[in-house]
């Protein structure tokens, strides 16, 4: 629909150039060829982007012989089997019976979820407040002004996890925070805080000051104006920052591998520990990977708009 409109308006803009009928035909052919090329490339890249996911999901329903013979399409060249899902206790016939693997999986799944959501919430609260302050007020802490404070926050983005990993190990040992959820939540909050501040700064800059000034005239305090006027307007930005944070925290591996052992382990650690062992069962690894990526795949499908919003904040002026 939109494309036909565009085409018409495109024609309308050049009624003055006279064209031979033949060249009209030629340009039509050219346009169609262009379209074909575009869609071919689009479909090719869709295949590249989605095939590994398709492969993982279908492999989780295979048995050994299907893997070795390279079968690809369920019901056509192999019969789906629940073996992979049974091995992690998530197939229909084992879902209600006890399974230690499933308990382990669910524990880590829960850990991942709690930590990702907890850290993202904390980061969005801290980061939004800081971003709002930095956008609206002039600060002076000793020699630090707004620019310096912003730079201090954003520069944390450069800090590679390896620099913090061992000091955190030592620190957490002393604080009795090793292998706890709260410990990892703090680390993850630190990791995503610069990104949240970056997104929210952009968001608050887009809100006209006059709105808050009106609220102040009406008798709101600074915080009242923030809570009642600014928060509701900037909610989409916060959701975007939150979802992007969840994605990053859910996928984090480095800190989780070094700072947790048995209690606060996350899903990526479980996946990685299974990968390392020799003679892995493809079907159970595939089932495990599928289960680990499924939540974010669903987030990606339904909340894509917010992820795009979060990623592009501040990048395009």
């Amino acid at each position, binding site marked *: 629909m939109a494309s036909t409109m565009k085409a018409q308006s495109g024609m309308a803009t050049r009624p003055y150039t006279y064209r031979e009928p033949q060249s009209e035909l030629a340009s039509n052919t050219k346009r169609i060829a262009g379209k074909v090329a575009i869609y071919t490339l689009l479909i090719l890249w869709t295949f590249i982007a989605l095939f590994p996911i398709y492969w993982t999901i279908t492999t989780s329903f295979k048995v050994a012989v299907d893997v070795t*013979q390279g079968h690809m399409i369920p019901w056509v060249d192999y019969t789906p089997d629940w073996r992979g899902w049974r091995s992690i206790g998530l197939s229909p016939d084992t879902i209600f019976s006890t399974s230690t693997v499933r308990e382990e999986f669910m524990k880590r799944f829960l850990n991942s979820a709690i930590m990702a959501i907890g850290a993202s919430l904390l980061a969005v609260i801290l980061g939004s407040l800081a971003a709002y302050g930095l956008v609206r007020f002039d*600060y002076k802490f000793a020699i630090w002004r707004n620019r310096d404070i912003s730079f201090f926050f954003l520069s944390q983005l450069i800090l590679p996890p390896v620099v913090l990993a061992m000091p955190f190990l030592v620190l957490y040992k002393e604080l009795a925070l090793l292998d706890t959820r709260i410990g990892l939540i703090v680390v993850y*909050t630190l990791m995503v805080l610069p990104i949240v501040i970056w997104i929210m700064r952009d968001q608050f800059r887009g809100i006209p*000051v006059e709105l808050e000034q009106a609220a102040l005239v009406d008798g709101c305090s600074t915080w009242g104006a923030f809570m009642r006027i600014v928060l509701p307007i900037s909610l989409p930005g916060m959701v975007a920052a939150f979802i992007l944070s969840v994605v990053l925290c859910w*996928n984090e591996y*480095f800190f989780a591998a070094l700072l947790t052992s048995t209690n606060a382990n996350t899903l990526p650690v479980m996946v990685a520990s299974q990968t390392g062992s020799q003679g892995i069962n493809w079907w159970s690894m595939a089932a495990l990977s599928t289960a680990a990526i499924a939540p974010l795949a669903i987030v990606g499908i339904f909340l894509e708009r917010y992820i795009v919003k979060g990623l592009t904040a501040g*990048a395009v002026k």
Partner: protein
Amino acid sequence: MQTSQIAAPQDLIATHDIPPARRSAGKWLITLATLALAAIVLYQGLYAAGQTETGFANWRPVLYAYLAWGVALGWGQVLMRGEGGKRALFVLPAILFTVAVVIFPTVAGLYIAFTDWNLASFDGRSFNGLANFWALMHDSYFWNALRNMGYYVLAVLVQYAIAFGLALLLNAEIRARKFFRVAFLMPFMLSPVAVGWMVGKSLMEYRFGPAATLARHLGWENPAFFASPWIARFSIMAMDAWVWIPFVMILLLAGLQALPKEILEAAKVDGANGWRSFWQIIFPLMLPVSITAIIIRIIFQLKLADIVITVTSGGPGGSTDTVSSFIFREYRDRSNVGYGTMVAEFYFILIALFVALLLWGSSRWMKRVTG
């Protein structure tokens, strides 16, 4: 773009009529809280150093004391400075959090870096000055990993080129744009560890992996993706690109959509063909976004580790090693905390310099290009 940095409300609220009693109450609150925090740190510090008999089982009470101190600091600010204090409350929590979580580990890290500390040995920690640093200077594995980082950073440019192409495709007049956008974004959502298995260990598996099968069909007789140094490096780069291209693509797509339509239309009327209008109009206009995307991407690339750790552990012969995965193995397999931390601190200084140089150079270059 709005330049609404300074809000006018200063004129609306009088900040100078705070009674002296309230002001001194705030001052006292902050002083007392600081003293209490210092006392607890000292109490526990002396106990930990073996100077006194009594103390807490761990340092956690100090953490609570710090939190309480933070609350007192904020409250004191409000008491002392009224409106100004309330404004400081916006940014104070984040500053206190970041300072506590970054400054301490960095200082502790510098100390650890100059110690000989191996968790596997019984001797414990001992100061050994610059020994770690000299060891680092002669560690060919580290320099090898650093050289690999150079290759990985260069690979970002290839990712950028592909991402630009995809962004142009998505920006063309197509149907089902939303579907393609979601599909293209998908790899970015997946955990690199899972990708390591899905792609590295399964798709590219030598015997049954579909990628290997395809390569055999295409005439590569021995499709071992992780056996020889350069092929292994390219395989890691390909996986990394698969995960990160969507990120760059989304940024560039946003840039393309923000381009002024009139200029593109004008180019069409002038009869510029696609290739020329791209290089002469679109590409220059996209430079700012491109620079941002590439710099952010390089910053993330310098942390590359997960995929390498899960797929090759740096092999074969260290040819896919990144600095992060090298340090990870130093910690994990050799428990060599002192040395690993020295490598990490050294690397951090290097990349801080590199990123600073990059930012400085790109901003200068942008100024020259855009005049």
